[in-house]
């Protein structure tokens, strides 16, 4: 799922479970409507629980914004695969994508709310991470 609002930081939700990722994205939409570019991905390449780099790259592309993209992840592999995906981006995009150290559902909602107010990427990441710190 996606929508394009260049200007606001994009949000990508990565969970081992596609249902969690999609559900978290639904909660974000309810909070911020179409004000931020948003995409979600979950599951391994065979459709089981897990995460995959290709899916994450696609989600980053879908939620891409010139202001950058904040990624919210659940457990370890989601983070490792997200960091791998960021490194595989074209060089000019790499520095504009950050993985947030925050709970995936709450973090996504908070990050999107911050983004919808026009905050820059660093502030979006910070608010997601500070909420439960």
């Amino acid at each position, binding site marked *: 799922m996606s929508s394009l609002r260049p200007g606001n930081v994009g949000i990508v939700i990565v969970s081992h479970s596609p249902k969690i990722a999609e559900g978290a994205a639904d909660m974000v939409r309810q909070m911020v409507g179409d004000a931020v570019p948003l995409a979600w991905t979950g599951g*391994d390449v065979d459709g089981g629980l*897990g995460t995959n780099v290709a899916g994450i790259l696609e989600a980053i592309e879908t939620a891409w914004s010139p202001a950058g993209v904040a990624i919210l992840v659940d457990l*370890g592999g989601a983070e*490792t*695969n997200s960091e*791998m995906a960021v490194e595989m981006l074209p060089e000019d995009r790499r520095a504009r994508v950050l993985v947030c150290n925050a709970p995936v559902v709450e973090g996504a909602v908070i990050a999107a709310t911050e983004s919808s107010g026009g905050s820059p990427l660093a502030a979006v990441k910070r608010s997601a991470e500070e909420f439960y710190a």
Partner: protein
Amino acid sequence: MSLDRVARERLVRALAGAVIEHADELTSLDQAIGDGDHGLNMKRGFEAVLATLPGLADKSLPEMLKAIGMTLVMKVGGASGPLVGTFFMELGKALPEQPSRPDLVTATEKAIEAVKARGRSEAGQKTLLDVLVPVHAVLAEGGDAKAIAAEAVQAADRTTPMQAIRGRASFLGERSIGHMDPGSRSASLLIGAAVETLKFEVNT
């Protein structure tokens, strides 16, 4: 060490075979202290690698290793994909086409450093680094194929009493003690297959 096309294909098949044949064992190790998908994930990754043969073996050794790494990154899923994939990719980047033993020692060290950075981990945390690091030490000290293979097996065994500090098993805290780390076991299997196939031509 000079590997012709036949030897490169043999190496790929041996690596994949070792993982695929032990997929059930890896899964049951992972069911004990992880999320139970390690065997399945690694099997999927190496089946995808096999599917790129015979073209894969037409590549030079460094290019072949990079391609294996990229396939694993894209197909394995879970944290093992980026970790094991990074090892192969960095090894490929650091090796010349016909590596000497010192080249292999240096390149392996670089690949291990990349795995540490990717996982933000060090040896001692019950991860594949607990096999890679001690095996590298044996390689660097001039150990032969037998010594390297033996260290790979023993290093994986030594993860059993460790407490996991990184990875899914770390959620279990002390309950991770008493089970072999699945990632260490798969690293050990890969190393065993590699040295068996190469018969350590790198002695030269």
